[in-house]
């Protein structure tokens, strides 16, 4: 891992309806790191992540992101019932690579096939998204993120509502991307235990402030892993 800072967050604050959700937060994420952002619900993790990927625009402070980001939000009800095949969804990840063109070309399809194979989805590529299990859906979204050739993947609670074995598969897929493809991973989670097991570094946010930002081994000693 090198120390090139791929995401820099400097003194960022964000207010929603004049209520401060994030207070003067500073942190950075290095290229190739696997970082988990943990904390209680409503503590500001998702809000911070939305600022980083550019969905929340009116924040105070500075955020620098080098390279393209793929953002996986929590699944909405519309997505859970969406009539589209796995292949159609994964292929749509390539749009950002050539936004001007009208159709998918051979290169797009090759990238899509690679992603499908890597995440063991190729044989079921014609299956409908709405018929998949929660874990399969997450793998489809991760495959789509791979197709966008983004250097950073930001995920908001991808293992929410999944049973432990399936959640482990999602982590495994993310590990593969992180180690084999060198993609930086930033993941929001409220499952602190699993985050500690998997991440290179853990950032804990409570009431809009960073209260912990270090390697997982140090987190245990502080005894706040609830």
């Amino acid at each position, binding site marked *: 891992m090198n120390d090139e800072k791929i995401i820099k967050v400097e003194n960022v604050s964000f207010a929603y309806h004049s209520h401060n959700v994030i207070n003067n937060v500073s942190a950075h994420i290095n290229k190739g790191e696997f970082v988990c952002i943990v904390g209680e619900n409503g503590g500001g993790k998702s809000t911070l992540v939305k600022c980083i*990927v550019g969905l929340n625009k009116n924040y105070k402070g500075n955020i620098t992101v080098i390279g393209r980001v*793929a953002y996986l*939000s929590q699944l909405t009800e*519309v997505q859970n019932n969406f*009539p589209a095949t796995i292949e159609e969804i994964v292929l*749509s990840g390539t749009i950002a690579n050539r*936004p001007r063109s*009208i159709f998918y070309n051979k290169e797009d399809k090759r990238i899509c096939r690679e992603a499908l194979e890597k995440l063991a989805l190729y044989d079921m590529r*014609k299956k409908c998204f709405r018929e998949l299990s929660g874990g399969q859906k997450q793998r489809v979204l991760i495959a789509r993120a791979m197709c966008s050739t983004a250097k950073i993947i930001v995920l908001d609670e991808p293992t929410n509502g999944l049973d432990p074995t399936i959640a482990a598969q999602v982590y495994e897929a993310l590990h593969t991307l992180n180690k084999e493809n060198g993609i930086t991973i930033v993941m929001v989670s409220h499952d602190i235990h699993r985050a500690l097991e998997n991440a290179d570094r853990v950032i804990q946010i409570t009431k809009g402030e960073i209260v912990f930002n270090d390697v997982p081994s140090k987190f245990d000693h502080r005894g706040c892993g609830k």
Partner: protein
Amino acid sequence: MIETILVILSHPFMQRAILVGSLVSISAALLGVILVLKRYAMIGDGLSHVGFGFISVALALEHFFAFGWAPLWITMPGVLVVAIILLKIKNNSKIKSDSAIALVSSSALAIGVAVTSWSTGMNLDTCNILFGSILGVTQSDLWISVISSILIGILFILYYRKLFAVTFDEDFAKASGLRARRYGDLIAILTGMIIVIGMTVMGTLLISSIIVFPALTSMRIFKSFKSVVISSGVISLVSFLIGIYLSFVHDISAGAMIVLVNLAFFIIFTIMEMILKK
């Protein structure tokens, strides 16, 4: 049956109605897939009432000043502006979008009714606007409709990939640099256009059904986005043709008949879905 069809096709007004209706049915169904998935279906319904308001004002102006303009030339820009405003409200979480649509659509309906009763009075024209009329398609309507439908078809194909991406996951599309807002505006404008050009044949009260029905029907059975889109277009066109045939033969309102055929398809597909799942 073939003789009846030949008789139908021999009337110039029927030729116009069939041409306009077919094009509108297909383009409404294409857009419908996106509107239903994006939960924008109510916007279509609200816009049709707004269309009634504008067309009533246009007819009243015509009644008093006799400009000689086709009412659609006034209705189209008006509806498009309201379409964009309604979409902005939908994206602004501070205002409850469904209540806003209810306010806008009932106000527009009230304005339409007030203006009509003050100028020409409620007459057959009003009835035709509300419930549609195959006799109502004039030569200038024909041109507006043909051009708009073709434009919608072309834009849909050109932006197919991006419309899919934005419909499935707006946040992902935005984060990877697509201008999702722009596609939202595009969808609103196209919806406004469909509502206005479909009003003459379908009527303002029934037009939103041809946007919603084919998409919902197709989603019962089809599993890929592409097949849902194609099937919606086909179901919509077939429903229109069967509907207009039955309407001619039994002398029933065309708009109502088309909606009923669409409903029949929806029920058939729902039953098929239940059988397939077993």
